[in-house]
């Protein structure tokens, strides 16, 4: 069999074509950040008002989602509430879940970084647990997939509550008043850590932000927020680019992004292969519901004011391969900044009332 030059030429052209096609494959990824090809979103009506379609994206849901594996039960939530406020779940007997997720600080702690039983400052800021029922990944780096799983983590972290799960179980068994609470929630079962975390998760799912002025406006009450805040809503969804990540009724996409903060903490990157560059320095988008306008902000509490936050987004963050493609420099006028802050203020509803339980 013999090949003439034309046949060989055709063959090598074909091989070159195959090679080009393979360049598209994941083995040879070619990051492309040059163009923002996002479809243009209809932000306003002809009269310049925020469009109904845009507003509909922020409408509150009607009910709380509970997983089939751990459905709502009032006795379970009541047990969970007792456990949530009980400092005896920590090694020193002085730190409860509510110590860091304090109702008086919108279920956070108001600190730049949390502090637990050892007094050592934790590496990250305490997030609020309001609206945790809707979370699909928990902790700043997403290392817990469910509230049930998450509930065990602070208990066993050395500098948070410093206990072992067996230690928690043994301690609960020694407190006689817990027996009837567990029996009401889990009839016929002995006190087990699995039931304790199921109860904690159930209680936490009941903690939902109160209806805010923004919600009333979304529902049609035009007088619920100011004209300034309405303009701020358009800044939020338009030139501010905030809604690229702070989307949905909770103002978060429950996703992970590197926003270019100067930090050695690689966040989600610790749980992804090094080849997944986009997860290096990536942290979960926090909700802006009940945002404390006094700060601190960011996963590490490194920013003290909203002006500092806006300035960060104006500069676009530290440039590095993992920087989220959603991070593009923005430029806001003084008026737009003021409007944006007015809008963010409308996301705060009345504080969620929660009476501390009398512990057994």
């Amino acid at each position: 069999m013999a090949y003439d030059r034309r046949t060989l030429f055709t063959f090598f052209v074909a091989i070159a074509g195959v090679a080009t096609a393979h360049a598209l494959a994941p083995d040879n990824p070619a990051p492309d950040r040059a163009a923002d090809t996002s479809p243009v979103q209809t932000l306003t009506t002809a009269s310049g008002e925020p469009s109904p379609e845009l507003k509909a994206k922020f409408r509150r849901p009607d009910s709380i989602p509970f997983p089939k594996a751990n459905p709502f039960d009032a006795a379970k939530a009541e047990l969970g509430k007792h456990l949530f406020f009980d400092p005896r779940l920590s090694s020193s007997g002085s730190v409860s879940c509510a110590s860091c997720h304090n109702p008086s600080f919108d279920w956070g702690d108001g600190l730049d970084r949390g502090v637990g039983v050892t007094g050592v400052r934790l590496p990250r800021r305490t997030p609020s647990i309001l609206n945790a029922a809707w979370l699909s990944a928990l902790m700043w780096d997403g290392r817990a997939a469910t509230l049930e799983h998450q509930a065990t983590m602070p208990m066993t972290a050395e500098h948070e509550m410093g206990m072992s799960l067996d230690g928690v179980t043994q301690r609960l068994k020694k407190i006689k008043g817990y027996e009837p609470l567990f029996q009401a929630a889990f009839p016929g079962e002995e006190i087990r850590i699995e039931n304790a975390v199921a109860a904690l998760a159930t209680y936490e799912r009941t903690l939902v932000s109160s209806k805010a002025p923004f919600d009333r406006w979304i529902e049609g009450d035009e007088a619920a927020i100011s004209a300034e805040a309405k303009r701020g809503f358009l800044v939020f969804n338009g030139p501010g680019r905030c809604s690229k990540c702070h989307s949905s009724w909770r103002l978060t996409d429950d996703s992970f992004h590197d926003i270019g903060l100067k930090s050695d903490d690689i966040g989600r990157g610790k749980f992804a292969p090094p080849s997944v560059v986009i997860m290096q320095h990536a942290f979960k988008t926090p909700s802006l519901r009940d945002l404390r306008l006094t700060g601190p902000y960011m996963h590490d509490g490194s920013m003290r004011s909203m002006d500092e936050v806006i300035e960060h987004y104006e500069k676009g963050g530290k440039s590095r391969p993992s920087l989220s493609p959603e991070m593009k420099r923005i430029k806001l006028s003084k008026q737009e900044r003021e409007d944006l802050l007015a809008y963010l203020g409308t996301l705060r509803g009345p504080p969620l009332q929660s009476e501390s339980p009398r512990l057994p």
Partner: protein
Amino acid sequence: MVFLKSICTALFILVAVHAAHAAEHTLVMHHMELQPLQMTPRVGDVITFDNQSDMTHNLYVTYSDGTVDNLDTQIPGVKRQLTIRVAGPAVIKCWIHPIIRLDVEIAPPADP
């Protein structure tokens, strides 16, 4: 020259077999959803991941043997291709958006 002929013949056969049996599928991303595939893909088939959403994604496929193929970052409008490697149940997820998930059953390769 004989060696070159042998190599060319082998490659011709490989390309021909690939063309005869590998099917192509397109999986479209809409916002935070993956549109299910219309047909069951086979090992050797090529899936084009088409990001028609308004956000950047980074999908990855976890096969039944635990191995993973990473699709890398896809800004809106970008397509990436992946040749399916392992039969059995596979899961397609997004590193950036953990809420995204599509379960796919992958059939063994077609008989030559």
